Structure formats: C-alpha cells, structure tokens
C-alpha cells in the first residue's frame, strides 16, 4: 500500500539559457501515515518536490501517483497567508464550514491563542509560519506537506515547536513530507529520512528511523541516528 508514489520523476524548468534540469529519476514511495523527511542543499529542488506532491506542478518525466485523491495541507516555505484577511478568516477560507468552530483551538494549538483577529502583517515571521501550520492542520489533511516549517525561527523557539509538532502529529497521524535542513528535526519528526543531492538532484540515500512515536530530542538513540544521518549526508556529498 502506498499513499503517494513518485515514479521516475524528473523536472526541467525553462530558463533564459535554455533548460535547467532540477530533478532526475526520483523514485519514492510513501506509505499511508508514513512521515518522510527530505534533506538536501538549498536549491536542490526540495520545494519543487513538494509542489509536485501537491499537484501544483506536473513532472516533465515520470509521474506522481496517489492512492486516494489527496486533501493537501501545505505549509509553504513562506507562510502565504492572505494579508487582507484576519488569521481566523485565513483559516476559514480554506476549510469547510463545519470546521469553523475549531479555528480558535487550531490557533491555540500552535501557540496563537486569541490572535485570530490579527492581520498577518501584525505577526512576526515565526508566528505567521505557525498560523500557516494551523491552517494546514485544520483541514484534516490526508497529505501534509511541510516546507522548512521552522526555517525562519531561532533555535530555541524552533526546538519548542518541533516538540509541539511532534505531539500534534501523534494526535493527528497523517502522511507527511517534511522538508528540512536540520538533521535533528528530520530524525525527530519522521519515520524515514531521504537525502537528496547531485546535479541534477537525485535520491542519494535514506535512513529508516526506528524510534517509538513519542521521542525526546536528547534521547541517546535519537542522537545516534542524527550522527548516522550526518555521516550519510557527508558521504553522499
């Protein structure tokens, strides 16, 4: 059973000097409920992969196959809230009416209690990112796409939010693709880490994360896997 499958996926963008091949021969299968972290350098095509999964982009080669039509919750690299709508309206816009009573608690869960009537321009970058996470979780997605959800945050806040997200994902299990630069985050939040690299970008290796669902970022077993992952990234490079 696979929820999502990349089959020989390649992406080539048209550019001023002809064509730029960004991704080549990506084969990836994601099981229902599985959480896969994607690790790779800046510009390697991680966001492009998520756009493929969301159906925003068609692959130039190969195909992206879904088991069931996905209901996608997407946390973009930039928060992409509508600046002319309040936070609660931003959340209401993407969700069916029966979810609207849940909006205040959805905001509370990401630490934005009582901020529903703020406009996105009144939030810090990190708060906007959390609102974007609340929006993605509110719609009860069956495919959650997270593009460096804590990239804009300081380590301290990011650390807190990683633990919080880990809890949220345990409460609300969902097939997840998580893009990150951070090996510790990858290990904490996923069941499998996939390392991307090369020119054009391919899958260079992967690491199964055999840890219990409830994880402690300072746990010795987890730290061992982080070290193993670092090694994998080095050899892949």
């Amino acid at each position, binding site marked *: 059973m696979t929820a999502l499958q990349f089959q020989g996926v390649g992406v080539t963008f048209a550019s001023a000097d002809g064509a730029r091949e960004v991704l080549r021969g990506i084969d990836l299968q994601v099981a229902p409920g599985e959480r896969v972290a994607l690790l790779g350098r800046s510009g390697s095509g991680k966001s492009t992969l998520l756009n493929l999964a969301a159906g925003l982009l068609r692959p130039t080669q190969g195909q992206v196959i879904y088991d069931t039509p996905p209901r996608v919750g*997407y946390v*973009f690299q930039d928060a*992409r809230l*509508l*600046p002319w709508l309040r936070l609660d*309206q931003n959340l*209401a816009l*993407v969700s069916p009416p029966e979810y609207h009573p849940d909006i205040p608690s959805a905001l509370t869960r990401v630490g934005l209690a009582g901020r529903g009537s703020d406009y996105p321009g009144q939030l810090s970058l990190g708060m906007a990112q959390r609102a974007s996470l609340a929006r993605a979780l509110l719609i009860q997605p069956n495919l959650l796409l997270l593009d460096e959800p804590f990239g804009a945050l300081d380590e301290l806040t990011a650390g807190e939010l990683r633990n919080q997200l880990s809890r949220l994902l345990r409460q609300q299990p969902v097939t997840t693709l998580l893009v990150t630069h951070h090996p510790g985050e990858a290990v904490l939040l996923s069941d499998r880490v996939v390392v991307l690299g090369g020119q054009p970008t391919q899958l260079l290796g992967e690491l199964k994360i055999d840890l219990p669902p409830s994880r402690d970022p300072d746990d010795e077993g987890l730290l061992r896997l982080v070290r193993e992952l670092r090694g994998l990234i080095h050899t892949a490079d």
Partner: protein
Amino acid sequence: MLRWGWPLLGLLSVVVAWSLLTRLLGPSTFPGPVDTLHFLNEQVRKAAFWGHIGITLWRVLVCFALALALGLPLGWLLGLSPVFSAFAGPWLAIGLTLPRILILLSAFLIVGLNEKALVTAITLILLPTVAVQVREAVRSLDPRLSDMARAFRLSRTKTWRWVILPQLWPTLLGLARVTLSLSWKMVVFGEVFGRTSGVGYMISFYFQQFEMRGILAYGVVMTLILSALDGGLAWLSRRGSTWQQPPGGEP
C-alpha cells in the same frame, strides 16, 4: 483637520485665487465668484440648464461604462496570454499614442455629427488606457497566492473573491477614477466640436457670446458633480482601511 479642515482651507484658497485673478484681469474679462454665482443662480431655475448637464453626465457615464466593460476582459486576456499580448501590441501602441482629438474628429467625419460617433470615439480613446492598466495588474498577480489557493483546492468563486480580486481592487479603483475624469474631459471636448447639446456645446455657445460667466458657471457645476462621483470612488477605496479591498462578506 486632515479630513475636513485642510480641504476646506484649500477650497478657500481656490476662491481667493479666483478673486485675485478677477481683480488682475478685470471683472468683464474674468468674472469673479460672486458674479458667477449670480449668473448660476439664474441658470439653475431653467430646465434647459439641467438638460445640458444631464445629457453630458449621461454621455460621460456611458463612455466610462463601455470602456470598463470592454477594457476589463481585454486587459485580462492581455495579461494572461503572451501570444495575444504580442499580437495586440501594435494596436495598443497606436491607441495610446494617437492624438485623442484625431480619433474624435475622425469619428465625426466618418460616422457623422451624432451621438454614435461621440460615444464610439470616446470609448475608443479610453479603452487602451483601461486595457493596459488591467494587463499590468493581472501580470503582477502573485503566483504564490494562486498556488496556495490551488493547493488547498479553493473553489473558483472563492479564489476570485478572496485571492484575485483583493489584489486587483486598488488598481481597479484607481483606474475607475482616472477613466471617469478622462471621460468627462473628452466628452466636453467632443460636444464643443460635434454636438448641439451638453456642457461642451453650451461652453462653446457662451464662448461665441463672450460670456465668460456662462463658461465658469457650467465649469463649477460639472466640477462639483464629478468631484462627488470621484469622492464616492475614493470612499470605496478607503473602506477596509489597512488593506484596500472590496467591501463586504466573510470567507
């Protein structure tokens, strides 16, 4: 003070400047505000006066509406389709650079000195400006927000109302204001040359009579009416304070 005080002071300075100009040029050459008001006071009792004002206003609004009705879809197409935009490029270039008076006079010569010629010419004059501004607004739509709407499977109506329209709205309002004022100027122009009714016609009539008061009187009334219309549009664009967005509704 900013809302009422300064504008009132500004208006007062206009009246003062007008009076000074009258002092300078002599009341027979350039009648002052009081003279003009007296003249206006006689005119507003006559049905003919309101008839001319009415017909001009009607022409202004018809040309304005036609230019928007044609220019919005045209600009939308131009913004979305590079092929159509490339093809239409020369047409727009001509439309934008051709002297407006040339379009107006050609229309009178070709179609005749009638209503159809006036409305056609002025709509054609307004159209390229509308289309080009809408094109630019459409091109500057944020593709990232459209991606967000697609990823969350927003319906077409919701995408239009809450993602696209708020981005276009400031341009549309500015466009409406500019188009309305241009329409008014061109209609008066056209009436001077090719019509036997309307404010433009009356201005040229008083011109031939050397009756400056008449010219000023019509000028004052039309300025008041159009300022009110423009003020309405400005009010619409101020609503929603922080973000210039179309009024009404909740998502």
